[in-house]
């Protein structure tokens, strides 16, 4: 797709444009001039065809792109730049053939404005390296950051402790992690990072995706009828997609419940986690439902004892915009309630707009960390 060297095509929606020379050895000055040339040409396209072109950036978005995740992530990133225009840096570390060194090319991601009338374009800088040049990546990125805009690192590298990624973390104002991306369900490094750097700087997208679950459950207990049953809660079952070891959201959810309801941890026994509440024992069980749905939660069942008995199950699947609540006790009822499912890009942008530290996440993470080590008998 070499649209700029074919001026008749002009800038159009969602086009990723390569600079005229394509990828070339990294040189910050040359890249900036490629970008300038790109805008100059864009400005020369006939506005009656493309409409006015706006160049926009609210942040520097730095994304190490693991080759395994690239095809999934690129459409998400395009959507993120539509919702939150940014200068996007995608980094493909170690993919270039040996001897290629550090290379880069530029492009633009363009979106038609709502209601028509012109394109909003974001710059993209694609950095590739061979394995020997990986350590040079952070300095290359640093030389191209737009100085007065915040730098956001979207860290989706499954591996931990890569020194070049740590260096990127140091230069970032905000780090978005996803504790779900590690399939073993154990990317605990994310939570360590939250504890170390604070939840103002490090956000876990797995937590953001839990928000609708927390909403639905909170809303159940907004009803005066059910509120007292929180005090006599005895058993919580958390069902997650897949099988095996519980994924991070299950731990986070348990951590959240335990801190909100002031339970104290008692121990782990045959796959069940025991707590003590003000009124007695509480057991939390986490189980895979066997379905194919990533690492998402699919079911929460709760049971409370007398004098405020309650039996209730909340289920949600995939991208549904509703969850189903079925109550057994005190009376049989079934209702579909709104479930704020959000696309991945919307989740990411939601986090970009949240600046305050997140006390609930910090508390949940602390408990979740402890539960996981106890579970493994560490």
């Amino acid at each position, binding site marked *: 797709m070499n649209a700029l060297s074919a001026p008749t095509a002009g800038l159009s929606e969602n086009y990723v444009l390569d600079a005229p020379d394509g990828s070339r050895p990294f040189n910050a000055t040359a890249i900036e001039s490629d970008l300038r040339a790109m805008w100059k040409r864009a400005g020369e396209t006939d506005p009656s065809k493309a409409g006015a072109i706006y160049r926009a950036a*609210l942040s520097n978005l730095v994304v190490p792109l693991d080759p395994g995740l690239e095809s999934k992530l690129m459409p998400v990133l395009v959507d993120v730049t539509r919702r939150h225009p940014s200068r996007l840096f995608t980094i493909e570390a170690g993919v270039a053939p040996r001897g290629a060194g550090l290379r880069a090319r530029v492009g633009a991601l363009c979106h038609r404005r709502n209601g028509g009338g012109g394109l*909003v374009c974001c710059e993209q800088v694609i950095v590739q390296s061979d394995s020997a040049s990986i350590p040079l990546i952070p300095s290359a990125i640093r030389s191209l950051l737009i100085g007065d805009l915040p730098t956001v690192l979207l860290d989706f590298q499954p591996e931990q402790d890569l020194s070049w990624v740590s260096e990127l973390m140091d230069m970032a104002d905000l780090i978005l992690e996803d504790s779900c991306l590690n399939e073993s369900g154990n990317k605990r490094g994310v939570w360590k990072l939250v504890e170390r750097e604070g939840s103002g700087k490090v956000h876990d997208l797995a937590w953001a995706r839990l928000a609708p679950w*927390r*909403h639905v459950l*909170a809303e159940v*207990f907004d009803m005066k009828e059910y509120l007292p049953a929180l005090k006599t809660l005895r058993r919580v079952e958390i069902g997650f997609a897949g099988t095996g070891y519980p994924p991070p959201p299950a731990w986070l959810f348990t951590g959240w419940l335990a801190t909100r309801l002031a339970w104290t941890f008692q121990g782990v026994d045959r796959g069940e986690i025991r707590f003590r509440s003000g009124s007695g024992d509480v057991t939390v069980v986490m189980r895979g439902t066997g379905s194919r749905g990533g690492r998402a939660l699919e079911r929460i069942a709760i049971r409370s004892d007398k004098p405020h008995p309650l039996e209730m199950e909340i289920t949600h699947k995939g991208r549904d915009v509703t969850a189903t609540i079925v109550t057994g006790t005190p009376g049989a009822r079934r209702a579909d309630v709104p479930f704020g499912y959000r696309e991945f890009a919307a989740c990411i942008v939601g986090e970009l707009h949240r600046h305050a530290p997140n*006390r609930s996440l910090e508390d949940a993470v602390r408990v979740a960390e402890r539960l996981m080590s106890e579970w493994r008998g560490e």
Partner: protein
Amino acid sequence: MSAPGGLALTSEPAVNPLRDESLTLKATDPCCIVVFGATGDLTHRKLIPALFRLSKQKLLHPRTAIVGFARRQLDSDAFREEMRRTVPGSDGASPEWERFAGSLFYQPGVFEDPEAFRALGRVLTGLDEKRGIPGNRLFYLATPPSEYAALLANIGAAGLARRASRSDASAPWSRVIIEKPFGHDLKSARKLNALVHSVFHESQVYRIDHYLGKETVQNILVFRLSNGIFEPLWNNRYVEQVQISVAESVGVETRAAYFDSGGISRDIFQNHMMQLLTLTIVARDIVRAQYVAGAVGGTPVPGYREEPGVDPRSQTETYLAARIDVDNWRWSGVPFYLRTGKRLPKRATEIAIVFRNPPYELFRSAGCDALQANVLRLRIQPDEGISLSFGSKSPGQALHIDPVQMDFYYLTSFGQDPPDAYERLLLDCNLGDSTLFARRDEVELAWEFVDGILNAWRSDNRPPLLTYPAGTWGPPEADELLQRNHHHWYPL
């Protein structure tokens, strides 16, 4: 589940530990919102859609109840159905709508009937009990102002306007939102305020002008006060003139009778424009005009007097331009030019702040033409944003200075439209934040100013009613008003 009808009451205090701060942007109080005039246009077009969007975004407390009150004999189900038919995004049985509809109720009654208000009181108490609402009330007067007197008197008589003691933050509150216009002159505004105050304390009164809920109007304040490079410039030393324009391309649409009795001075000048400029002002020069037939955006349109419902001899102005001097230290000597009109070439609201040129025109000796002033434009609608123009040397051997522009578009920068003004204002009222509502003295001051003009017009020196063809920027006299000071209107 979503409509918790018939819930048992418990004595437990209503604190839900799962509703933590990360789940809501702001913690709104559960309350009964009573909309007087619930079958009217404003309710259909603005209020219920705004409340529905707030509910979808989970910004309304889930126990909120919305009670419509109007003359028409409807029951709650018929009211829900009527709202479902008109509110965007409510068609079909989306769970979001179902949940929201479960919080809608209707009580028929006429505003003049005290018994209807006692019945309303009983409905509200019942909803408090059923939904666990601690007695908070938000009354929205979405009726023509002619109804306010009966309405307020009966709200008071039925004991619905309880004044919460200000020292007790946990006591239930009641608040009232009043729609503009706030009177039709100073006298009626004072009378209305006195009436409102016979029932509510000023701290309970929220006078809504949706202009103030607009993100870009709020942005004016943020822009001015939080940007170190602009804040010091906001005075007569650096600013040469200010232009405020509120242009509409439409005519009077269905509001001919209302408009014809007040004209643009009351319709837009008093409320919206004065919100953009709440200062002590002394009138100088005014141009009034009425549109005659012309074409707007390629479509022929009739003259004002030919519009349905308008008196064919009407002397009502549809265009007003004025030069105003602000009588305080900061702005003395800086003319403020205001213009507003109907059937202008396009719809646009903006404030242009024109800066003085540097005292020493260094480049004049180099054969450079007169410098163009720096202009800061705060665009309120459409295309909300801010732009700044400044001079730059154009490429080439000769020294030419051309104006270039730096633009900030709300939409392109933030990738989303700013939220609707009514949403923001309803939320603020629930939260007890009256920053974006008009205070009594503010309203009276604005009327004092407009009254001054209107009174002058009643005497012999009433400016003549000029005309302008629809689809033009007003009469040439409006340009002359500025030319006297070697100024000109900045194009919109």
